[in-house]
């Protein structure tokens, strides 16, 4: 009897132009139909955080107790993180059905009814996966996955397999068409043809810059060298972006195939994946996937008799945001401090160990298997004139449905936030969406109709960045958000060039100045603070123009963009000394309601600055000049006598 591995290698990988759409054995691996129940549990980091680990144990206990023969498969994240843990069940001859928020206490109820071919009578049902296979029975009154508002507008290329397949099974990836495009390519095409295909497809770097990938490759291909390197940048440091983690956790083979394609195109035989240490699960799954790919002969020496060698090494980052910058990343792999180098020479000419090096982001690389398999024309039909293909966005913050969405370029911001993600929870008002992390900016109500593409975002002072969308409602203070980013950048600045090192620090100080409570609030102080805001704009401009690397050049963006759109909030902080969102706690003004105060003296005792005076059994009062607005009095008062304005 031949093993799965032998079958796949002999019938799929070794035969060129093989059509296996009718191959029964492959259908079995793809689970077109199953002969025993299969239970899928979404166990990405987000799923595990929501309790998928306990759900897994509960499911296992249930099937052993009831002596049911079933497979349990751990998948990655399908993208709808707010509904995790997600539990899917595929019964023989039935469509796969998906349940949301399946915590351990719901497992029994769901499985009890589903094994009797009934849908549990409650609202855990999310959707069903309709298959073109008409022999299968549909679940009644259950929407198809494509009918749900969250999934309907999406077009999934990078996330195609995430949450659907077993991420650590190379067989499933190959059965769904993986690696065959790559092998076909190395049999029939040469390096420059592949570069040309990718350039023609219009694929642009998804890590932020948006440079044409194929064009960048050509620089490296055109530089003669004995050794060239490919680096996959998985140092996803942008707070608010987590698509790289989800792709590696949910479909690591797509990344490996993408890397193999890129390495072939530029003529590199060695490659690195530089991944954050904060992603232990992603590292684990990537290691397994690389070992499997080696086992199948897809990585290594003389891949399928093509004379092509390719190897991948995983390097764990050591916790520095600046290492997401190309040249800093190279320094880090070389074992030095992660400080950027001046360019030129560009890494494509002289990079890692002085050799031509191409650095691509996880999402960019994960688009390649599709482009190579389906052709550049199909890819370039998706998206807008200048921005082709799709983009994955990480939705988080004050929004109904958080998670990952992959949409064609050109979709408007409003569609993403209100149609796909269901808008703002608790009937609050939308204020802004922060796009692009610490290098990006804000998009406000007036700009919600702009299409998402590289150029249009820059026009409104934002930037695609890596694709984190953090939604903010009326309870968020924009000055505080700007301060948060400035604090982050100031801490992460490597310290090499002065504009970034000193400039970001000064910017942070000015922002702290306007959000802190001054002891003496006279007109002179207000003038100084106002001058600070005008200085912010000037400083920001200088930092942008004179910094060495991308981190510094984009560092002032969050501040400049919030000043541009929310100048009134800055003015409110400066002149009226107030924060209407009540976030900048130090600007609160405390007073005591004389009718409610019983004179218990507890507030006076607890006040850290002795700002509360009064005698026993008589109403107390607060000396505002001494008050630091810590809020302790409000916490300890039993009579609700403290008024905050």
């Amino acid at each position, binding site marked *: 009897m031949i093993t799965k591995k032998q079958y796949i290698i002999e019938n799929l990988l070794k035969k060129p132009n093989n059509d296996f759409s009718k191959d029964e054995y492959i259908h079995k691996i793809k689970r077109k139909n199953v002969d025993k129940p299969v239970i899928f549990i979404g166990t990405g*980091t*987000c799923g*595990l*955080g*929501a309790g998928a680990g306990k759900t897994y144990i509960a499911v296992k206990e249930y099937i052993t107790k009831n002596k049911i023969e079933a497979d349990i498969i751990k998948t990655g994240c399908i993208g709808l*993180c707010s509904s*995790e843990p997600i539990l899917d069940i595929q019964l023989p001859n039935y469509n796969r059905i998906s349940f949301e928020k399946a915590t351990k206490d719901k497992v029994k109820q769901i499985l009890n009814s589903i094994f009797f071919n009934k849908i549990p009578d409650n609202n855990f049902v999310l959707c069903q996966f309709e298959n073109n296979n008409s022999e299968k029975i549909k679940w009644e009154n259950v929407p198809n996955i494509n009918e749900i508002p969250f999934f309907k507008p999406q077009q999934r290329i990078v996330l195609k397999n995430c949450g659907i397949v077993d991420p650590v099974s190379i067989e499933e990836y190959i059965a769904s068409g993986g690696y065959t495009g790559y092998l076909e390519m190395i049999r029939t095409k040469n390096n420059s043809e592949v570069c040309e295909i990718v350039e023609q497809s219009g694929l642009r770097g998804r890590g932020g810059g948006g440079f044409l990938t194929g064009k960048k490759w050509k620089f490296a291909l055109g530089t003669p060298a004995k050794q060239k390197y490919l680096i996959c940048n998985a140092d*996803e*440091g*942008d*707070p*608010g*972006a*987590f698509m790289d*983690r989800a792709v590696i956790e949910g479909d690591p083979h797509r990344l490996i195939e993408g890397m193999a394609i890129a390495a072939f195109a530029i003529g590199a035989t060695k490659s690195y994946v530089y991944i*954050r*240490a*904060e*992603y*232990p*699960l992603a590292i684990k799954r990537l290691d397994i996937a690389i070992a499997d790919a080696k086992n199948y002969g897809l990585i290594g020496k003389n891949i399928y008799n093509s004379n092509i060698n390719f190897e991948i090494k995983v*390097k*764990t980052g*050591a*916790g*520095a*945001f*600046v290492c997401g910058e190309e040249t800093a990343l190279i320094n*880090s*792999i*070389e*074992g*030095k*401090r*992660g400080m950027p180098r001046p360019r030129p020479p560009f890494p494509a000419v002289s990079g890692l*160990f002085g050799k031509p090096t191409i650095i691509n982001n996880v999402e960019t690389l994960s688009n390649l298997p599709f482009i190579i398999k389906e052709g550049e024309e199909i890819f370039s039909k998706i998206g807008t004139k200048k921005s082709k293909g799709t983009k994955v966005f*990480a*939705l*988080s*913050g*004050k929004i109904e449905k*958080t*998670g990952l969405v992959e949409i064609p370029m050109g979709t408007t911001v409003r569609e993403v936030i209100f149609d796909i993600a269901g808008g703002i929870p608790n009937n609050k008002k939308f204020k802004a969406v*922060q796009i692009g*992390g610490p290098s990006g900016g804000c998009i406000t109500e007036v700009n919600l109709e702009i299409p998402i593409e590289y150029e249009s975002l820059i026009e409104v002072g934002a930037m695609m960045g890596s694709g*984190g969308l*953090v939604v*903010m409602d009326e309870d*968020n203070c924009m000055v505080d*958000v700007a301060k*948060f980013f400035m604090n*982050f950048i*100031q*801490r*992460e*600045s*490597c*310290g090499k060039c002065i504009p970034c*090192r000193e400039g970001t*620090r000064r910017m942070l100080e000015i922002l702290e100045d306007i959000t802190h409570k001054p002891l003496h609030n006279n007109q002179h102080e207000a003038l100084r603070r106002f001058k600070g805001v005008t200085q912010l704009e000037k400083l920001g401009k200088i930092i942008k123009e004179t910094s060495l690397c991308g981190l510094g050049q984009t560092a002032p963006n969050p501040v400049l963009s919030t000043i541009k759109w929310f100048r009134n909030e800055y003015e409110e902080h400066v002149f009226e000394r107030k924060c209407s969102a009540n976030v900048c706690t130090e600007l609160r003004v405390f007073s005591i309601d004389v009718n409610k105060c019983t004179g218990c003296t507890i507030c006076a005792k607890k006040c850290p600055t002795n700002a509360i005076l009064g005698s026993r059994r008589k109403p107390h009062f607060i000396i505002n000049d001494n008050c630091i607005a810590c809020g302790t009095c409000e916490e300890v008062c039993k009579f609700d006598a403290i008024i905050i304005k």
Partner: protein
Amino acid sequence: MRVQRLTIQNKDKEKKASGIDIELINPLLVRYKKKKGNLIPLLQGAQEIYGYIPEIVFRKIAKDTGHKLSAMYGVATFYAQFRFEPVGKHIVKVCQGTACHVQNAKSITTALEETLKIKEGNTSKDKLFTLESVACLGCCSLAPVMMIGDKTHGKLSGKSASKIIRQIKRTEKKKIS
């Protein structure tokens, strides 16, 4: 800023080095000795073995690999991951990313500071917990988030975060008794 000024080392701290098995690092040294860019994996490996990088181990790496001590110190202090002080058994990383920040992650840190009776960056007296802040754990959809060991806990409030800590404390106590 990532570049740090040198502080004068406390003499007492150097004495603490006793009780460290310096031999444990040898297999790593053999494996990485002649490789390019070996410094960071070596430091990471040392930290995995000892929980932090003890000074004698640091000096041994310098001696065996030929790296300059000053260059090594420069690298080790540049990256947030490396520690020169022993840490607690469980490292509690509270995410302070954008999504967590807008969902009030600060209150989680404050609550944990109270429960553990330590300040951020320090280790509790019973040597069980070290409280740290981290830029982003990539679980923004579950904000606010913290990570204990390799386990991520999401959708926290000050109360639920403290509860998780107390639970770990109880299981640790049981283990001892």
